[in-house]
Each structure stands twice: as C-alpha cells, then as structure tokens.
C-alpha cells in the first residue's frame, strides 16, 4: 500500500486540464456550478426547454428537501467512513460527490416505483425512507442484506456488477403483466436500475438493455458515470460517450449533469413518466465524480491526480444547490444551520446504532438457505447444535 505517498500533479496542471464534461453540448444542465440557473432561451435552443419547464415547477419546498437529503446523506457517508476507519465496519463504499445524481433522481420516484441499486446508492435509500443505519448491517458483517426490499421499494445492494439490471428488467416485465403500465392512473409504476460506468462493460447490463428494449419494459437505466471503476477510467470501458450506447439498443438516451440535482430530477421524472405511461425504457447518463475512494480498501492516489479531484471539488453538488437556494432566497441562515444540526444528530445516532449491532447467534448460519425444509441443512444444523452443546459446562477453550 502506498497511502502515505504524496500524489504529484503534472507540472503546469491547472483547472483547464480537467475540463468540465458537462459543458459538452447535449448534456442537460439547468443550474451552473455557481448556483445560477441557465437562461431559458439557451435551454430552449439546446432542446432542453422541457426540462427547464419541469424544473421551474419544482417548488422551493422540494429544493430545500433535496438539499437537506443531500447534506444528511453526506453526513451519514462521512460517519460510516469514520466507523470503518475505527474498525466498526468491514468496508464502506463512499458516495461523496454523487449526492445530486442520487437525491435528484430519487426525488423523481413515486412510492410504488421500485429501485434496484448497486451498492453505493445511500442517498437513494435515504429518500426511499430506508433508515440509513440499516445499510450498516451488510458492511458490519451481521447480515448479508439488512432491510426489507419490499417495504421501501428498494432492493438489496448487489455487489456483482450489473447483475441487478436484469432483475430490474424482469421486475419491469412483471409490472407490465400486472397491467400497471399505461393506465394513466396512480396505479402505473416503473423501475429504476442504478449502475456505474464500469458496469456498462458487463454482459448482463447489455442483456438487460436488450430485454428492456425488446419488451418495452418500464425501466429507467440510471448510469452514474463517476469516471472511475476502482482504478479504471471510463476510457477503459468505452470509446464513445456512454449515452451513445443507448441508441444502438433502440433506447432513448439522455446525458445530464449529475452534479445538478435540479436537472437530474427533471430528466429522471421525464424518463419515469414515459416508462409508467408505457413508452418503454430510457438510458440516463448522469455525469458525476466519485470524490472518495472506491471503498475504504482503495487508494486513489495510486491512479489519479489530485488536481482532478480538486477540479471536481469546485463542482460540488451540495454547494451548487445551496448557492441556488441563497440566490433565489429560498433558504436563510437558520435553515442551513438547522440542516447542519440535524446531520450532526443523524451521525451520532448512526454511530450508536452501529456499535449496538452484535453478531447474530451462530446457529442462524443455517436460516433461510431454502424457503422450505431441506434434509441436508437440517442435518448439518442439528450436528452443529450438538457440537456447540458439547462445550456446555466445559472449561473455556476445551471440549466436554
């Protein structure tokens, strides 16, 4: 490990060396990094007027709610990272920097929609109503899952990259068969599959796009292009902008500034409405940046420049929304202070909860292998119980 190495930026590195990929034509951006809204006329010209109109309907309450969710998510994420550093968690995948992509898209969901996350969608979990501390079971090693996927329409984290995009598509095919698409009522539902730029190289993701396209399944493929698949830059996965992949599958693709929560919400809303109405799948590439390490086991100084991280830190999604709220006078100092206080409280609660999680009884190893009784599991479970009981009354460390 070289975590103590000092990263050396190339001579002459400036911000210009790390141009903003969201300034590329065609990328939907409604709020600039400085928090100012882009002029309506310019958006109209670039064909993004429909999103600007949707964003204009986003109320100050909704903007404040998104800001609050982003700040709480970051506080939770920071706390979980610390807990791992202190040996309380086995591993933690940070979502820092991706809050707008996650919170913005999750705010477009309805209660009956269903989400299939990868393993970094802590912000989406929060918006879905999943108490954030429930995410810790998996990373503390007390459970593989940790929450009820049906209670919040939020599936378990999937660690095998891209596998869940097929589950999302199958779930969407189920929604179609239930008749919950295109009724024009609250009955209509859709599915969102979250995955990253690395996952787009996986066969399963490509098969999911094929199945969703040919069955017209109500699925939104939400790709957070955070630029790094552990150490591999996006150029290792693709030679074209990821959004261009979509058209080859016959799926509309939209590229959005993933650090602009307002734009992400508008784009995702449109895609979800289309899916619920029976219009079929959409591919969204949300261009963002993984500010932290891949996980707490990773060391980004080995493969990327600090200057790149600094360039992206100037595009911080939370600061951008805060600037918008201030500029439009939707929030005052009291609001920001209250959110700050709430996030400190959340972090403290998470810490207490994490430490209260103890290993389950060893006999639970045998629980839920099958949904119905199974003679081999029963036999091994009985043997194990007998073996454990053989220690009863024995001196510590010895057999009876």
């Amino acid at each position, binding site marked *: 490990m070289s975590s103590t190495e000092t990263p050396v930026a190339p001579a002459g590195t400036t911000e210009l060396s790390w141009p903003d990929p969201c300034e590329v034509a065609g990328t939907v951006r409604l709020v600039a990094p400085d928090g100012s809204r882009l002029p309506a006329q310019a958006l109209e010209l670039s064909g993004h007027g429909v999103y600007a109109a949707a964003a204009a309907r986003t109320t100050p309450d909704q903007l404040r709610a998104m800001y609050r969710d982003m700040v709480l998510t970051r506080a939770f994420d920071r706390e979980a990272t610390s807990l791992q550093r202190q040996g309380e968690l086995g591993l933690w995948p940070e979502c820092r920097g991706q809050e707008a992509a996650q919170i913005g898209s999750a705010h477009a969901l309805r209660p009956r929609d269903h989400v299939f996350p990868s393993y970094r969608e802590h912000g989406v979990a929060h918006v879905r109503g999943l108490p954030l501390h429930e995410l810790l079971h998996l990373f503390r090693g007390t*459970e593989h899952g940790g929450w009820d*996927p049906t209670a919040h329409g939020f599936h378990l984290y999937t660690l095998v990259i891209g596998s869940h995009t097929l589950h999302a598509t199958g*779930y969407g095919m189920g929604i179609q068969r239930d008749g919950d698409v295109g009724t024009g009522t609250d009955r209509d539902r859709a599915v969102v599959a979250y995955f990253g730029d690395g996952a787009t190289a996986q066969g399963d993701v490509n098969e999911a796009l094929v199945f969703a396209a040919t069955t017209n399944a109500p699925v939104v493929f939400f790709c957070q292009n955070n630029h790094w698949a552990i150490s591999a830059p996006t150029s290792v996965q693709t030679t074209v902008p990821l959004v261009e992949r979509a058209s080859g599958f016959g799926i509309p693709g939209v590229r959005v500034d993933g650090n602009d929560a307002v734009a992400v919400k508008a784009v995702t809303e449109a895609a979800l409405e289309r899916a619920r109405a029976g219009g079929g799948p959409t591919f969204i590439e949300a261009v963002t940046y993984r500010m932290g390490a891949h996980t707490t086991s990773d060391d980004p100084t080995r493969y990327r420049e600090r200057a790149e991280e600094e360039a992206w830190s100037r595009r911080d999604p939370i600061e951008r929304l805060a600037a918008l709220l201030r500029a439009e006078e939707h929030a005052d100092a009291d609001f920001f202070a209250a959110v700050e206080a709430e996030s400190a409280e959340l972090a403290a609660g998470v810490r207490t909860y994490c430490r209260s999680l103890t290993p389950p009884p060893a006999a639970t190893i045998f629980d*839920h292998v099958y*949904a119905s009784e199974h003679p081999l*599991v029963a036999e091994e479970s009985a043997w194990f119980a007998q073996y454990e009981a053989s220690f009863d009354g024995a001196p510590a460390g010895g057999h009876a």
Partner: protein
Amino acid sequence: MSAETVETAETSATVETSSRPSTERLPMARAINAGLRRALATDDRVMLMGEDIGRLGGVFRVTDGLQAEFGTQRVVDSPLAESGILGTAIGLAMAGYRPVVEIQFDGFVFPAFDQITTQLAKLHYRSAGRLQVPVVIRIPYGGNIGAIEHHSESPEALFAHTAGLRIVTPATAADAYSMIQQSIASPDPVIFLEPKARYWDKGEVDLSGDGVDLGPDGWRSLHVARTVRTGTDLTIAAYGPTVATALAAAQVAEGEGHDVEVVDLRSVSPIDVDTLAESVGRTGRLVVVHEAPMFFGPGAEIAARVTERCFHQLEAPVLRVGGFHTPYPASSVEKEYLPSLDRILDAVDRSLAY
C-alpha cells in the same frame, strides 16, 4: 446424428388437458408438455421463457403448442441470451410470477451460471427469507443422442455444490409429468434436468392430475428416491438417463444369478440418503451410476455419505460408473464414455467379487 436431426425428431402425440381421469402412453417429452400445460392452466402466475420455445415449440418440441394456447405473454420467446433469461426470470419471480425457463442444451447454461449460483440460489438467504424466487430451470441434459459438442453434457455437480438450489431429474414419463408440476409449486428455485435421450421413451401417464400433490408434501416428495427393482445382493443407484440402463443391467445380472436392487434417486440435491442407506444396509454393496464425470461427481458424495452410514454393513467399497475426467467426447465414441450396460455389469462383478 447432428443437432439438426435432433430438432426434427418431433413427437406428435396430442395430449388431453381435461381433468377426467385418463391414463395415456406418452413419450417423456409429451408428458413434460402436459405437465407444463396443466401448470399454466391452473396458476396465472406461471409463465415459460426460453429460446425458440414459442412458435417453434422448443428444439425438442417440449413446449409445442403452449404459446398458441396461452399467448405470447405467458410463453415467451426470449432473446438469445441465457444470463438475460435467468436474470429477468429472477426479477419476474420477485414481482410475484413463477417463471419456468428453458435452457436449450446443457452446454449452453454457463452464460447463466452467475445468475443461477450467485443470484438465484442466494436471494432467499441474503434477504433473510424476505424474498422468494421460485424459478424453475429446465435443462435437457446428458448424451447418447449423437450430437455435436456442448449438446450432451451432465453439469449437475456444478449446481449441486451450490446451496439454495434444488436439483431433480425424472427417469420416466409419469415422473416427468408430476415432477415438473411439483417443481413449479416449490417455493425454492429448482433445476429440472430432462434426460434428453429418454424424451421419446414412452410410459403410462395419468393426465387427470389427480395423482399430483402440489402441496408442501408434494414438493417434499420430489426428493424421495424410489426403489424400482428390489434385490438382495447389490444396490445400483442411478438417476435420469441411467435408470433404464441400470435396470437392463440388473436384468442381465439376474441371468447370471445375482439379485440386484435398483434405486432411482430422482433428486440430485438433496440426495435421499435414507432410502439408499436402508437399501445398502440390506445388500451390503453399492454401485452408483451417472453420466456426469466421476471426479467430484454425485457418486463421490453418495459414496462418502453411504460409507458414513453403512460402514459396518458394506461388503465392498462403493464403486462408481460414470463419465471420465475428459471433456465430453465426439459423438462417434460417446458410447465408450457413457455408463453402458457392460460397464455397469463390470462394476457389479467387481463389487460382488470383492
């Protein structure tokens, strides 16, 4: 014989689906068809997915006529992508459906291996019992049909090593009819291995469905072995395509004065060790027969478990007759690779002479 000739070996029997008691003499492929039809007719959540299973009726015609009867939303012609078929089946199961997927040939299951072993098998466990994924995977398996490579394999051990899956395989048309329905009724994922060389072997099938218990006792009975021939000198354990070969070997052995018992395991995971141990406790000798390679194969597991249970009753080591530690060979020499009647008799002789 090429894969193409396999595809044209169509069966033409017409199956009545009415509930009147009726016993018909049917090939196994038609019995599975009748079982699938009954499952589709009795449970709206049941659906079939796979390559070429709809308009064509499958390359073996096992699903013949079902799309015409139940429509394209319930009998789905899938894109040509096995992982996609399994992955979407998992999603459909989570949405409350009971997908029955067909993998066209044994050797084509591996693109779906990850979805089966990493996702399907583990979701109930990972979710602490909150999610059930009752997917049935039908796989025509085994050799002896003169096919080109990848069309004759027996991959059951690769799946049996994974907790969370159930693996069954019928040896007769009657079992095929009932076991496919019980597999669909099971709350767990089931790999349903169809011995393709026996697709055209006929047997009596009660199509009334009255004899098929789809309750908890029904899918429990899926894993119960059946003694198909009683004997006192030696036990042969077989399943799927090798049961008929084992019975033929027992017949020959009888002519040589040996009274051989034959047990049809019916289930590879779990294995009904109780039935086997009871049999071997009486005969003292066991020969396990399967087409899968012997090395790390089901026979190895059976030998270990029966030896643990019957150590003092065994008169000879448990012997295995199965595939060699080679890829499945070219079809012109496959008969040398497969557990033939002669190779089974050789093992019987060696066990008796021990």
